[in-house]
């Protein structure tokens, strides 16, 4: 009798297994969280060293326009660490690429969801998927061998610069924005379309006055995602932007972005030196900006829900 009571009171074999499986899968999840936290902790600690350890002022760093960390200014005895040219460069290519890509993305997704549902999806879906699949170095290579010489022959100059970067990024973020916009347009309820058409709207009136309005939060989210991708893209931009840490004079003067300076510089500086620390500060800005893009997406999502 005792034996049976004991057996019934004990955890069964499969309960134990279940607890073990649960623990294993939970630890995998915990690992991901730890990775995210340590990425922030490590990059921030190195990035903040510029300000706390090397005593650079935040204002000089963010608004200074001369970038040459290995040279010291004879008057102020401070190295040239103005990061504004890169910050401006990053934001310029990001916004310009988003501005160019958005109409193309919306047009393509309207084609797929409203104008030619069957044929449109059959043709454009693979196109979008292939564009997503092309690796960024290949975009960079095409930029270098096609876009840069083209800009050079049309506008003169070296061909490297913001404009080339914008064109390359435009193609790179186009599929991101398009596929997310398609999903949003598909989620607009069918009866919106039917009611618009029933009261005599043309197809374009229905799209413009009903569908696009209803899908605005989703489209904005898609654009922000595209911008986040453009802001963080490193190699393709680095190959076509010209890599001169100067304030962009115009769209075809060689300039640089946060990511391009990072990819060029980290290997050529000594860990722990000021020249190295300022690069980590640039990485920290990248990290914080990707957080900001995330927050914007969340804010848009919340606003969209209220309606």
């Amino acid at each position, binding site marked *: 009798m005792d034996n049976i009571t004991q057996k019934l009171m004990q955890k069964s074999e499969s309960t134990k297994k279940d607890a073990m499986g649960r623990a294993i*899968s939970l630890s995998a999840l915990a690992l*991901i969280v730890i990775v995210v936290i340590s990425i922030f902790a490590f990059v921030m600690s190195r990035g903040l060293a510029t300000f706390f350890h090397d005593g650079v002022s935040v204002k000089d760093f963010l608004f200074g326009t001369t970038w040459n960390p290995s040279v010291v200014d004879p008057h102020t005895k401070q190295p040239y660490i103005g990061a504004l040219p890169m910050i401006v460069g990053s934001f310029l290519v990001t916004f310009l690429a988003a501005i160019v890509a958005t109409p193309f993305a919306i047009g393509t997704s309207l084609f797929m969801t409203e104008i030619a549902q069957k044929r449109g999806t059959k043709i454009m879906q693979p196109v979008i998927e292939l564009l997503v699949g092309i690796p960024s170095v290949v975009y960079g290579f095409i930029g270098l061998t096609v876009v840069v010489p083209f800009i050079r022959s049309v506008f003169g100059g070296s061909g490297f610069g913001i404009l080339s970067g914008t064109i390359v990024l435009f193609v790179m973020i186009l599929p991101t924005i398009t596929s997310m916009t398609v999903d949003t347009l598909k989620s607009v309820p069918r009866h919106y379309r039917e009611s618009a058409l029933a009261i005599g709207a043309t197809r374009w009136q229905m799209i413009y006055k009903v569908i696009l309005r209803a899908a605005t939060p989703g489209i904005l989210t898609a654009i922000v995602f595209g911008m986040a991708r453009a802001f963080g893209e490193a190699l393709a931009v680095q190959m076509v932007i010209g890599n001169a840490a100067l304030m962009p004079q115009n769209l075809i003067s060689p300039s640089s972005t946060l990511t391009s300076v990072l990819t060029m510089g980290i290997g050529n500086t000594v860990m722990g030196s000021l020249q190295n620390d300022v690069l980590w500060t640039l990485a920290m800005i990248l990290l914080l900006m990707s957080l900001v893009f995330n927050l914007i997406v969340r804010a848009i999502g919340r606003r969209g829900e209220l309606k």
Partner: protein
Amino acid sequence: MNAKTADKLATGIIYTISGIVALILVAMLSFILVRGVPHLSWHFLTSPAKAFEAGGGIGIQLFNSFYLLLLTMLISFPIALAAAIYLNEYARKGRFTTIVRTAIEILSSLPSVVVGLFGFLLFVVKFHFGFSILSGAIALTFFNLPLLTRSIETSLAQIPNLQREAGSALGLSRWETVIHVILPAAVPSIVTGVVLSAGRVFGEAAALIYTAGQSAPALNFGDWNPFNISSPLNPMRPAETLAVHIWKINSEGIMPDVSAVSAGASAVLIIVVLLFNVSARKLGAMLHKKLTSA
């Protein structure tokens, strides 16, 4: 302009835009293939790269890319699978789940260059792994984890709850239900997700330039002892991959045939990535047919 004309005009514009987008893709693909494919040969695919003279190949880089991909998948798949199982089968709505989901979302939106720099800081410098395949594989794991986790979670979520209820009704624990019922049913779409992510990993370069390094030392393909430094299997050797090679020779390559080599290498990269993309769906469909009664 009346409504009918506006409608026609808008339709025309939308057609044009879609045409341009399709044209961009066709132009890019044909540019790469027309430029690169004539340069492909057995010699190009198997011989080592040359730094100063023409006629170098991409043999070592190609091997490195595949080896790195294999290691990355070996590390990231079990973690992503376990994480996805927890998220889809065990997690309840609550603060913890929200935090975890946010973390995964943030990780997936981090620029890959930052992930690479973190790998550089932690593994190359702090843990003294040096520029090595192992450092690169771990950095790529971080880059790959959020997307792979999400795609596996979606695959699990597609299995109808009826299956879980049936498992419980038969007296199976939740874990047993997952292992014996849910996972087998989800295999086809998990495979599709894994192969798709393999394509992404194969083409990634920014996370690798400071973790797996930018040099490809000569390998002895007769030596398969992973502890020898010239062995292809040694995970502690620096390993420039195909994608990194394309970036590197375009930024600072000085061999006379640099544009031919990078066109050829780009063509190989594109072809492999496309093969991954196509085979992902084919493989998934095939497995689905074979494993289920559908």
